[in-house]
């Protein structure tokens, strides 16, 4: 894992001291809210419906046990005993007092964490494949590059006042688990024919009120050019991105209005001036960062096969969890485990302080002290010996985190919605909870197969509804909640934006509507192997529309 050097620690400590002073002056009435607001946002402090909210950065979703224990401590001491993991691989606390922020940030700094750049029109937390460094299918670990980007973008003077926020994601595998095509910049780390590492560069993806799939503007960027090329992109955006209209200020609008080809030409021209200059990454610097992310020494554990075989026979629920929540590791004696934060009827992404502590303990004992947060709001143990899977499972059962639903319909992404968020128009969490309860039966979920359901409580799309196989968008209509359904979205290497299927549904209709959609899929799929998304792409919206609305047309 990356460890702060002296510079990092001094910088974060200095920021804690600076913000503590700002909080003190604000509480003393020496600075106004208009003056303070941009300062608190730069430090991740929002004001929501019930209280302040603190969003803490978890760079590329990687946490040590010690850091996770600190998050548990903050939940317990300063909040109400839980935290909410987000689709940017961050964590949010929903109830902290402003007067406690200095103490919280000091606690975070003691474990090399902070909340800087989790808000504002700057480069936000860089996200990465949550299986990075463990996945069998990756060309290389994307996190060293995410860390290089983090260092480069932290309080970057040129890019701290962009037209709008800016999000970067990196994946190192052909199978995109980081949703790079929905990002302002998406980077796909890969090898060229000569075996050299570089990136396919995507620009101008995003969700929100104008969803766009990113355009590939370069097929292979040599790795040493990463910062020069990203600087070129940001410069073009900073210069031409619209500052006159908040809703047209993201780079996706600029790329769309300029045209991808012309935009790419402008970036390349800018890059020409920067190429091979001081932003070129020296090989030894990349290697130095790389060493921080060296995989743990994984001792041979060949007994895994036999112990799993026995455990499978011993417990059906373990076998189901194994099939659903455990994936192949690059080392055949090991596996990567998804800890579902989507227990049936639970709040997607929420974990209690005691659950966080327990996961930290499990990671320390069985997973080389490392935990990941996925953008799908689950936790990951990236390196677990197959021989230890049963023990890990048993520990997860004890803390209520062994739900075997990874990638199934109850593995829902949901934003906090109107239950917490000042921007929301409708609730998300209760919708997710009800759908989860309706499809509680695991056998039924497994029969339905892979189905990514994503819910947002407003058009800002924090719940990624545009790229849900089934997406749900909550809106307010005539003072009541209404839920619009989109179908056919996807956030992987074949990214697509879901299409609105028809009129929206009231809070008491939406669960039934989802069930109708699922039943329609089951009726029209060719066989069990044809996934929901594949079926939708084959048959289109017609059968789903028919099932949802035919009665109305006839009645009309």
């Amino acid at each position, binding site marked *: 894992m990356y460890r702060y050097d002296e510079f990092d620690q001094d910088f974060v400590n200095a920021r804690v001291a600076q913000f503590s002073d700002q909080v003190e002056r*604000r*509480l003393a*009435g020496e600075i*106004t*809210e208009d003056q303070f607001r941009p300062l608190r946002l730069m430090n991740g402090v929002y*004001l*929501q*419906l*019930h*209280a*302040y909210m603190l969003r803490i950065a978890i760079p590329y979703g990687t946490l040590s046990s010690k850091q996770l224990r600190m998050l548990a401590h903050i939940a317990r001491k300063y909040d*109400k005993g839980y935290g909410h993991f987000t689709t940017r691989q961050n964590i949010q606390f929903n*109830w902290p*007092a*402003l*007067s406690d922020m200095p103490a919280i940030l000091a606690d975070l700094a003691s474990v090399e964490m902070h909340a800087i750049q989790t808000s504002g029109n700057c480069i936000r937390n860089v996200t990465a494949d949550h299986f990075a460094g463990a996945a069998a299918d990756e060309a290389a670990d994307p996190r060293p590059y995410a860390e290089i980007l983090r260092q480069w973008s932290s309080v970057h003077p040129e890019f701290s006042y962009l037209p709008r926020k800016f999000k970067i994601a990196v994946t190192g595998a052909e199978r995109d688990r980081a949703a790079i095509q929905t990002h302002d910049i998406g980077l796909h780390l890969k090898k060229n024919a000569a075996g050299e590492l570089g990136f396919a560069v995507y620009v101008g993806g995003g969700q929100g009120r104008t969803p766009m799939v990113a355009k590939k503007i370069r097929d292979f960027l040599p790795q040493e050019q990463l910062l020069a090329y990203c600087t070129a992109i940001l410069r073009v955006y900073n210069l031409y991105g619209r500052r006159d209209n908040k809703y047209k200020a993201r780079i996706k609008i600029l790329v769309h209005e300029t045209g991808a080809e012309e935009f790419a030409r402008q970036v390349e021209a800018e890059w020409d001036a920067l190429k091979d200059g001081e932003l070129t990454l020296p090989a030894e610097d990349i290697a130095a960062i790389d060493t921080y992310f060296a995989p743990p020494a994984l001792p041979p554990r060949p007994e895994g096969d036999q112990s799993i075989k026995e455990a499978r026979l011993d417990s059906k629920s373990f076998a189901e969890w194994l099939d659903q929540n455990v994936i192949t590791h690059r080392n055949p004696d090991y596996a990567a485990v998804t800890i579902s934060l989507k227990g049936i009827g639970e*709040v997607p992404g929420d974990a209690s302080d005691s659950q966080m502590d327990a996961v930290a303990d499990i990671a320390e004992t069985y997973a080389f002290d490392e935990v990941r947060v996925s953008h799908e709001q689950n936790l990951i143990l990236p390196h677990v010996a197959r021989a230890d899977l049963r023990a890990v499972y048993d520990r997860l059962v004890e803390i209520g985190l062994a739900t075997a639903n990874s990638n199934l319909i109850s593995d829902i992404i949901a934003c906090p919605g*109107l*239950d*917490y968020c*000042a921007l*929301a128009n*409708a*609730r998300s*969490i*209760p*919708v997710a*909870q*009800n759908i989860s309860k309706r499809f509680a039966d695991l056998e039924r979920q497994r029969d339905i197969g892979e189905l990514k359901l994503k819910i947002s409580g407003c058009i800002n799309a924090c719940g990624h509804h545009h790229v849900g196989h089934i997406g749900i968008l909550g809106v*307010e209509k005539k*003072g*009541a*909640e209404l839920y619009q359904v989109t179908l056919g979205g996807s956030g992987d290497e074949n990214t697509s934006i879901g299409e609105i299927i028809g009129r929206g549904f*009231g*809070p*008491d209709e939406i669960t039934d509507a989802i069930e109708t959609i699922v039943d329609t899929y089951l009726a029209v799929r060719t066989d069990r192997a044809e996934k929901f998304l594949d079926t939708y792409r084959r048959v289109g919206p017609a059968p789903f529309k028919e099932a949802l609305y035919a009665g109305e047309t006839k009645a009309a």
Partner: protein
Amino acid sequence: MKVLTGNRLTDGEAVWYAPDGTFAETIVGAELASDKAAEERLEAIGKRAYADNLILDVELIDVEVIDGAIVPQRLRERIRAAGPTNRTDLGKQARPAPAAAAGFDGGGI
């Protein structure tokens, strides 16, 4: 009818202006404005509370009085007055005080 609401600077707690001149942690007993003059008075109080660095996000919101209880018209404000609908153990609804009289019924989901 309208009431004056906002969030307290120190801890972000949702509060409502009460007839005793304080910002109370519950909407129960908030001062009601039922004509333009009363609204303007509350608006001025809100502006002053903001300028005095006491209250943020100051707003006059529409409410009804149902069976003697003040009920905000918008769901957003009903949730602010009660707490998260999925966690009735949190927020004002979890307190022994008569905050439940905010009249939020769970909202039908």
